[in-house]
């Protein structure tokens, strides 16, 4: 663990799902993903069937990292909004709370304007949730681990994982 570890409890997850579930409807989106900057998929909503979500998460993080690097080269802190237009589906990508990436996939049932508008509001809401999660994680780290499942695991548990 090399930074504040990201720990997502059920109640946090439910809050995020509620926000992105609403956003799918409000923005007429096909599906929505929340990915952290390290490429971990945090939450998903909408028609996600048929999408390789793990690959989507790692490539989104890679793309955000690369464009963030480009931004710094030209003296910008970041490019917080990205839009990729396809023949059928489009991708709207926004940075939330500096650490999270909100990915909205939409087709011609919606429009870039509508997605932008709805993402702005939902992004602010999500920002607050992630700030709260971050504060909780920092407080737990300061008090020594909180309810981490690793509190209870033994060396044998780890060894058993590799016994083949």
């Amino acid at each position: 663990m090399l930074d504040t570890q990201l720990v997502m409890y059920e109640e946090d997850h439910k809050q995020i799902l509620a926000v992105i579930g609403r956003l799918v409807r409000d923005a007429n989106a096909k599906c929505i993903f929340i990915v952290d900057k390290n490429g971990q998929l945090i939450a998903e909503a909408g028609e996600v069937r048929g999408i390789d979500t793990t690959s989507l998460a790692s490539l989104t993080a890679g793309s955000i990292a690369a464009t963030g690097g480009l931004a710094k080269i030209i003296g910008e802190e970041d490019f917080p909004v990205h839009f990729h237009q396809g023949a059928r589906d489009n991708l709207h990508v926004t940075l939330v709370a500096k650490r999270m990436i909100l990915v909205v996939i939409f087709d011609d049932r919606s429009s870039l304007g509508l997605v932008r508008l709805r993402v702005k509001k939902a992004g602010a809401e999500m920002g607050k949730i992630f700030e709260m999660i971050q504060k909780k994680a920092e407080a737990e780290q300061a008090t020594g681990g909180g309810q981490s499942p690793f509190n209870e695991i033994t060396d044998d548990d780890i060894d058993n994982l590799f016994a083949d």
Partner: protein
Amino acid sequence: MSFINYSSREINCKIVYYGPGLCGKTTNLQFIYNKTNPDLKGKMISLATETERTLFFDFLPLALGQIRGFKTRFHLYTVPGQVFYDASRKLILKGVDGVVFVADSQIERMEANLESMDNLRINLREQGYELEKIPFVIQYNKRDLPNAAPLDEMRRQLNTMGAVEFEACAQGGEGVFETLKAVAKGVLSDLKRLSR
């Protein structure tokens, strides 16, 4: 930096394979991919040039099983080894939980190994990490080649910190899973230690 999800009861960790160009980082991942049960792996992604040199990264998601009801998932990444891709290497190291350094045993690649190891230290330090303090495994790859440097010499030059080390021939798979297991175990032990 690992991610613990209580909702889906998953623990996700990130492992990065580092090393000089053409040392066999991608080959390690390809071997793991080819030999892993399809239920336990996701799609392997390689962002490579037309000549199959890694351009940005390779990515392989892997499930290792359960610990106390939590599914453990490892995301394996490689960095592009060529010197001029340093900006990309820095990006990929972000949030890393464990590192494998793949050294090229060919005697004429010793300089490249040393340069890459220095580069790893510098890039980790820029993000506030110390190589000595993170789960770290060294793999001496291409031991089967006739121009391989003596193991003692490689150890003396590259493993000054006494890290766990393995000899390997990644193309044939020798040492590949041993390396992966050692770093994964290191990551989980580290998480356990830090949660105490």
